[in-house]
């Protein structure tokens, strides 16, 4: 018999509702948008709303590298290191340039909490390589001057 009754116990254990379980990735994505990463509270909140344990949610969230479990800067710069960007003037050079300019290494966040620098595999912008993404905004045909422009504008926005 399939019983829908929610199961709660003082010693733990939970029966998971598949319909709710299927909403998890979307829920995590929304939760991540709040702070740029998944806070402990966000994971707990998602778990609560979906009738699952925080462990279940964390298990899924930590599986996907696009869910971040640690704080990031206000702007996350993702430099493409796909094959086209690599060949087309070198993705490494773009990453190195940004890295030098901001004074952070790959995976790090500037001390003022403004920028996080990381590389990603492909931004599907091969025709306009090299490319990078800052939060949800895509920047193409990058050159040092364009990068300077972008960064200065972002710094100025604060």
């Amino acid at each position, binding site marked *: 018999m399939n019983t829908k*009754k929610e199961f709660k116990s003082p010693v*733990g*254990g*939970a029966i998971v509702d598949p319909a709710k379980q299927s909403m998890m990735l979307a829920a995590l994505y929304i939760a991540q948008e709040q702070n740029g990463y998944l806070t402990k509270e966000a994971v707990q909140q998602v778990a609560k709303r979906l009738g699952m*344990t925080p*462990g279940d*949610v964390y298990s899924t969230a930590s599986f996907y590298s696009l869910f971040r479990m640690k704080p990031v800067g206000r702007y996350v710069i993702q430099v493409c290191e796909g094959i086209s960007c690599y060949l087309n003037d070198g993705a490494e050079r773009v990453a190195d340039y940004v890295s030098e300019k901001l004074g952070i290494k790959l995976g790090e966040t500037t001390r003022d909490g403004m920028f996080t620098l990381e590389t990603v595999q492909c931004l599907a912008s091969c025709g306009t390589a090299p490319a990078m993404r800052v939060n949800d905004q895509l920047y193409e045909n990058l050159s040092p001057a364009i990068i300077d422009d972008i960064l200065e504008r972002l710094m100025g926005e604060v």
Partner: protein
Amino acid sequence: MPNLIIDDLPIEVPAGTKVIEAAEQLGIIIPRFCYHKALGSVGACRMCAVKFLQGPFKGVQMSCLIDAQDGMVVSTTDEEAVAFRKFIIELLMLNHPHDCPVCDEGGQCLLQDMTVAGGHSLRRYLGRKRTYRDQNLGVFIAHEMNRCIHCYRCSRFYQEFAGYRDLGPTQIANRVYFGRFEDGQLESPFSGNLVDLCPTGVYTDKPARFQGRRWDFERLPSLCIHCSLGCNTIANARYRAVVRVEARFNDAVNGFFICDRGRFGFPYTNQPERPRQARIDGNESSLEDAVAGAGRKLADIAHRAGPNAIACLGSRRSSLETQGLLNHLCQLMQWAEPDYFLDPLLKKKVKSAISQLDSRVAVSLRQVETADFILAVGVDPLGEAPMLALAMRQAQRKEATVAVIDPRPVPLPFSFEHLAVPTWEMNGCLKLLMEEAMRKEDEKSAARDRMAAEEGWLRNNPASAEIRRQIAQLAALFQASRNPVLICGTDIVPEATPAVVGAWARSLLEEKGKCGLFYVLPDANAFGAGLLGAANDHAFLETVGAIERGEVRALIAVESDPFERFPDRSRLEQALAKLELLLVLDYVPSPMVQQAHIFLPTSTLFETGSTFINQEGRIQIAQPVYHGGTPLSQMNGGGHPPRVYAGGLPGGEPKPAWQLLIDLAGALSLAIETGAVENPLSLVASAHPLLAGLKNTSSLLDGVRCLPDVADAEPVPADMDPAVGPGTENELQLLFVDSIFGAEELSQYADVIRQVEGEPCLYMHTQDAERLGLVEGDRVLLTLDAGAIEARVCPSQSMAPGTLVLPRRRKLEWQKAKSFSTRVTPDRIEKLK
């Protein structure tokens, strides 16, 4: 039935058997890390590679993933397969620390064994090792993730097998991490099995950490006596202390696993407070003097006041030997037969339950796993017999329907149908389900109409409509089932229930050809106590009355602490104070020991080795694991043992209780049959026809069930309705119940168990809580007849309205209740600010 050849040996196995399993049947153990019989295959470790020479598969393949098929020719020793396994070891060792000497698993580590066996002794890879941060998983389990080889045994056991979800895999690929969302005590009461399952040292037994290597231990088969299931264990002792208890495989009882109460509840045998010295009137004395003194006093009292002035209180946690000797002593001395029960009602229920069992219907714990319909009546498996919950879950995983008739908020790690009715309606509920399930199809609708019209059976119960719907649904499933198992508790059920369930099981057996019957009894040797206990309804409650009236002047309490379960503490204290002689034999520092005039220290099952009968009627034998004596850690400030030889074992005075009873008989100038000293069970054999097999030798009887072919069952009482009715509109029935941690007598002497038992909770139905103006987390003062106790309110939707449930925690002083069954009016519950 596929025929195949493994290492030149032919074997025929049932279809669906994996090659690794088929090889095991031939005695060929293929190396493995992730494969486990109870958990199945995942193919995570690649360690069980063998070479398929002929048949549908060719080349090196994983033997845990491939079903044995006709025509297969398999080699486990083929060069290519051996080389493959060798590389796997090297691969797994890339990230594994090279520090076996400081790892608690060293010496009993599968990875260590395989590394040595595979000949991997030189590290070729010079890169850095992957490291993790460990978590604090609570008091039972230590966590060292760096040692992980990602076999997934832990999460498969924890989540799939046991049904708890707070520990599991996180992250991805080379970073996979097995842990919790955040640090904290593991929620599963079966977490200790991670220690046995983990092939390396990720999970180790925290209380036993660094207490010794496996080869240091005195290590022998033992039994768990923390509930009636009698799970098989292996006890490890070192330096005169039991250090660790592990699960021992038994295909008829517990399978591979045990619960945490059984694994971590043993420290009562080591505790510094354990009374090891005989005492007369509070002064230490030699054991001989104390026995002689007790003999003199007993003879004197019997001389002055007759044999009836001496009463005996046996124990359901005592071995069969002790129970048998106590019975025999009473017979010889013409004393009244010993009481094993405090409450006459409980005695009736246990005796009735035992009488229902026979070899046709009685099923083992493992057979519960194969049921396709389980009906549990008046039993809270996690609280009363934890491993039963795990067995029921295995059945449920195979699509069995599980229904529980119980007023408590029964927590089980799987979905089940809960008929939460008060105790006085359990029989009615059972009867309805029974009638409905036995009825032919065409009669059904008419019967349902009649049922709807019958308002009488579920009184004051707003959930009754819902329960009727559940019953109709369950009855249909029950009818379709081919292998139902009926489980019945003996603690909170009305008197008639065990007999009703037993009678139904037998009639189902006739109808379906198959039906299991499984009782949960109070304490490890309740079965023995039920067989040996007097046939009448006499229980210790009456003895207390007799003491108060001055009729009984001497009490012999053998490994029994009535303070644990007697509902009126002050009355018991006063009664005991009136005794001329209170002779106590025990191995725990119970309040009885404090009050005793003469105290004789007894040895624990780890020291004696003893025989117990579990709730299924299975005779099981625990071996003596070590010689006893004060643990070395408690002598010389834990330093080196003294370098001189001294006579005797320090702290080794305790003797088996049955031995002391023989000595006592000697002091009373009685001759106990010769032969009893060598084989005390020979006396038990004559006490009950079912135990006749114990006459000659007990060693052959390990695991044999002492059950009749056809039960001479006690009939169902004509009046099925329990004495406790619904009471008046407002009254609430207060149930004192067991809980996994903190309410069981022996395990609560363990520090770690006390740490996890949690705060005492008063469970009540949400609507009762609303009526009383209480919400979750409120603290209340519950006024009982002899004083008030404080507890936290836990409202629950999934329990019977009109019922309050209170676990018998030692720190609760629930013994202020004064009687075994209690009802309280709402004004007795006062909310604390």
